[in-house]
């Protein structure tokens, strides 16, 4: 296998030409986005450099405590991101359920993936644990964000239907089933769709990275298939936990609809 081409500083710098191109276009067209482009490029660069050094450190001194700490930071960041990203006002009960579903859903699928599918030894080997956790958590975050939006929108839009059902003697669960199912479906659909185009429309990032670093495409594909299934499981588990618990926050103990804060 050929040795990987290590990028020189000037080569890295050359890649920033693309940013200059974008800046040129927006300035020329009078689109007011220069500040965001510069800030995001800057942040991306700094964050990745820092991450790189942190990963080097973690990989050299594998330690279960540090691995868990990194996962914890990822979880906190993703939960914060979901809550920030969703435009609807969230009740504190719903926020707790988002956090609970993220933590339980992703750690369950992560542990299964690490211990059973890849069978890493030691289990906390950061070289495996951290990137895999990042992919499972990141995708679960996108899925659950969609699920939250769809659940809340659905509860408001279908309020009359839910009330009609309750008046007919339905349990809260039965009255919300269409909304809950709809939210779950739209949350997992992007993951399902991305599997359809995989390998044909695009080569996924992880696989591309492995191939560039000299791994045989066959090995890269094995990993990619496994991680894709892991992502599917992580998204499904997280979102089903969220919707199954989340709809309950719209009811009080008397099975009455409560729309707090709105």
């Amino acid at each position, binding site marked *: 296998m050929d040795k990987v081409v290590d990028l020189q500083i000037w080569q890295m710098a050359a890649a920033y030409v693309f940013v200059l191109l974008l800046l040129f276009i927006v300035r020329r067209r009078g689109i007011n986005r220069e500040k965001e482009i510069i800030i995001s490029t800057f942040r991306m660069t700094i964050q990745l450099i820092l991450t790189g050094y942190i990963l080097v450190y973690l990989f050299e001194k594998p330690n279960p405590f540090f691995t868990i700490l990194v996962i914890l930071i990822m979880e906190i960041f993703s939960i914060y991101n979901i809550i920030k990203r969703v435009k609807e006002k969230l009740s504190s009960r719903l926020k707790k359920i988002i956090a609970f579903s993220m933590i339980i859903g992703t750690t369950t699928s992560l542990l299964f993936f690490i211990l059973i599918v890849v069978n890493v030894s030691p289990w906390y080997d950061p070289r495996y644990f951290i990137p895999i956790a990042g992919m499972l958590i990141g995708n679960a975050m996108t899925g659950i964000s969609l699920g939250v939006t769809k659940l809340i929108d659905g509860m408001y839009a279908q309020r*009359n*239907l839910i*009330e*009609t*059902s*309750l*008046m*007919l*003697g*339905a*349990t809260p669960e*039965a*009255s919300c089933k269409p909304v809950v199912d709809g939210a779950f479906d739209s949350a997992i659909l992007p993951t399902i769709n991305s599997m359809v185009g995989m390998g044909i429309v695009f080569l996924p990032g992880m696989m591309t990275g492995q191939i560039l670093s000299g791994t045989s495409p066959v090995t890269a594909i094995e990993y990619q298939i496994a991680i894709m299934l892991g992502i599917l499981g992580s998204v499904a588990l997280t979102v089903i936990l969220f919707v199954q618990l989340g709809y309950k926050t719209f009811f009080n103990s*008397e*099975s*009455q609809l409560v729309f707090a804060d709105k």
Partner: protein
Amino acid sequence: MFFIKNVRYKSILDIENLIIPDHKITCIVGESGSGKTTLLKLFNKMISSDGGEILYNEQSLANINAITLRRKVVMLSQNPSIFKGSIRDNLLIGLKFAEKSLAADDKLYEILKMVHLNKGLDEDTENMSGGEKQRLALGRVLLLDPECFLLDEPSSALDEDTEHLIIEKIVQYSKANNKTLIMVTHSKKAADTFADYIVEMRNGRVISQREV
């Protein structure tokens, strides 16, 4: 049957004393905004009062499970939703929600006849008019055969003749089957014709209750 004492709900309702008799037709009348719908929702715990007590069959509502109560005291709102699917789906969904055994087609046609809906069970509900949907929703409630019906303006989308016909049918059914019927209506005429008991409301208070 229903007994209300010192019940308040937000700034909408303030009722000192109200008795709704058993196995009778009670009409609740009053201007819009007088709290009629809110009162109806209190009866099957779609909402709970902020104070006071409501008794159903001498038992405090606070001690009755909301879902159990709603299966005995079924409410039809003013704008009931119709579910996607056929007329049959819509009639049966109430029984499914209430976890009762499903009815055969003969029974469903009988109900459609009662609400003057001359349609097939497999017809889609999408193209039905507002009045037809209202009658279908009424049929769905009748099929549940509860102890007590709470009907909120069950005929608001109907013309006067159909309205009279439908209310007459519900009243006959209730009397024949010994049901309690509590109906909010804007029509004083309907109340005078059919009610055994009339409750009049204004500004969230009961201003009169009397037997007819």
